[in-house]
């Protein structure tokens, strides 16, 4: 699988069918405007998604609606479940039966799906989940948010398990990552999460409506009825501790392999950057504009954009930040991504944070101000000893 190293917000290459401004008679360009939610849904269908289960919640409802129309057209399974709890367990059943499954929800619904994710991880079932994040905690707001970072990368259900998390920052990239998510899920027999947000779900961008079809690998564990062979059991229960430890060791070996092979990121203007901004998804797009503005004003800034949030591209970030005087994590949360940034940087460079919560999105100028402050309070080339106190912005960041 190719590393997706396109810059933030990159559109897919497209053919311009006619010169700009030639008017009504020009042939239409080979693109269509699609909402993020719809594009993700259609990309999943093109990839070969056999079954979709969901429940209405803003801001991902269009994904469910798209599937409600398109899946039956394709002769595939669609169920609007009675809850996210039921939806994720329908996914569990369908995946055990060998289906390629997509499930989507938004933050509160993902919390309800946590149980199923733990069971699917334990049962080694490939399922792709989409979280179109909204503001929390609790019912929160329906505004765009990235406050589920820790839930996605460290948490949700119980037990020692991880889930690869892919974070698109444009609709075109979301389409690509849907295909990649199915590949990862099936290659490693694990749930995979696509972590989007309300803006990405609700925005429209032009996309080339030629989505990837993903070949389906054969599997020797799927349930179809034990005809001419011994019965198979898909389960997470291993009542003997020694057996459960063995099962955990298999999971951990898988996670180690994923970490070694599947970390992805994109960089922009990182050469000689004095301030390295780290951001993903919608925040990365804001940061990209902020980096451009800062460079126009003479501040040497660069953008490091993790595409896999788990596994986090820590070695690449540490290398990218090695010559910087400050690292600034920008996110739509009170400070979650920044924890992984600090772990990656290991105190070698001062790490700052700028975040907005509740559905608020920082403006590019706000991010520029945070970059300037980070630059101003850090010494130039002075070495920073690991373990020394690093300057921090106030909680919530510079406004």
């Amino acid at each position, binding site marked *: 699988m190719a590393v997706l190293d396109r810059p933030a917000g990159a559109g897919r290459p497209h053919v311009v069918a006619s010169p*700009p401004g030639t*008017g009504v008679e020009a042939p239409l360009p080979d693109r269509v405007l699609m909402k993020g939610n719809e594009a993700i849904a259609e990309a999943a269908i093109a990839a070969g998604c056999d079954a979709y289960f969901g429940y209405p919640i803003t801001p991902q409802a269009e994904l469910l609606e798209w599937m409600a129309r398109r899946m039956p057209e394709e002769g595939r399974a669609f169920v609007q479940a009675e809850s996210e709890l039921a939806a994720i367990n329908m996914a569990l059943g369908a995946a055990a039966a060998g289906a390629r499954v997509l499930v989507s929800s938004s933050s509160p619904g993902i919390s309800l799906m946590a149980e199923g994710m733990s069971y699917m991880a334990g049962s080694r079932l490939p399922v792709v989940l989409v979280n179109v994040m909204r503001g929390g905690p609790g019912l929160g707001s329906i505004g765009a948010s990235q406050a589920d970072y820790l839930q996605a990368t460290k948490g949700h259900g119980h037990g020692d398990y991880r889930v690869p998390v892919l974070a698109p920052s444009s609709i075109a990239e979301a389409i690509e990552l849907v295909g990649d998510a199915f590949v990862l899920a099936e290659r490693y027999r694990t749930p995979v999460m696509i972590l989007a947000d309300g803006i990405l779900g609700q925005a*429209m961008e032009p996309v080339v409506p030629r989505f990837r079809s993903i070949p389906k690998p054969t599997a020797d564990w799927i349930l179809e009825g034990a005809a001419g062979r011994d019965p198979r059991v898909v389960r997470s229960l291993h009542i003997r501790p020694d057996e459960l430890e063995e099962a955990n060791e298999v999971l951990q070996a898988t996670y180690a392999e994923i970490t070694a092979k599947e970390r992805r990121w994109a960089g922009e203007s990182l050469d000689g950057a004095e301030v390295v901004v780290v951001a993903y998804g919608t925040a990365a797009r804001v940061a990209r504009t902020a980096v451009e503005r800062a460079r126009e004003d003479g501040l040497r800034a660069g953008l490091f954009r993790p595409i896999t949030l788990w596994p986090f591209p820590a070695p690449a970030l540490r290398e990218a930040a090695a010559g910087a005087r400050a690292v600034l994590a920008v996110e739509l949360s009170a400070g979650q991504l920044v924890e992984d940034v600090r772990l990656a940087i290991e105190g070698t460079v001062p790490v700052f944070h700028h975040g907005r919560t509740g559905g608020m999105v920082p403006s590019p100028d706000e991010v520029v101000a945070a970059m300037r402050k980070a630059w101003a309070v850090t010494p130039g080339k002075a070495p920073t000893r690991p373990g020394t106190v690093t300057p921090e912005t106030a909680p919530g960041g510079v406004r």
Partner: protein
Amino acid sequence: MERSTIFAGFGGQGILFAGRVLAEAAMVEGREVLWIPSYGPEMRGGTASCTVIVADRQIGSPIVDRADHAVVLNPPSMARYTPLVAAEGLLVVNTTLIEAEPGRDDIEVLSVPCTALARRAGDDKLVSVVALGALVGRRRFVEPGSIHAAFTRVLGSKRPDMIALDIAAFDAGYEAGLEEVIA
């Protein structure tokens, strides 16, 4: 080139539709475009807004803090979005419903009785389309022909009967945008 436009007004004024048409027109021209609606409770009555960014390169921030254009169709929208217009940007004001002055002298203000022109074109709901016409007439960052094509693309399968009305409303706004003296 990158141009950002905020459309804002009451629900029912066709705000999201006008933005969608602009986005479609830009796409027809082979350009990059991003359309973001206000969504949720706002779209069920009350205020509505959307942002459209048109560019000749990849689009960064979906959040606009320096709008090149704002189209405001009711008083609350003017109050809220006028401060976001960048210096030398354009503010299209629906003077049928807005009496107040925007209170900025570093931007261009285009005063158009959008609701009245929409009514004359056949339907009050075309007010956003009239405003879009005025915007494109004043700042020709997309071609009017592309907008005409966009109406067909957006309405073609669902409401083909509306295409001619929309084009007429757009043209009325476009003429107003060309002619209106800078306030």
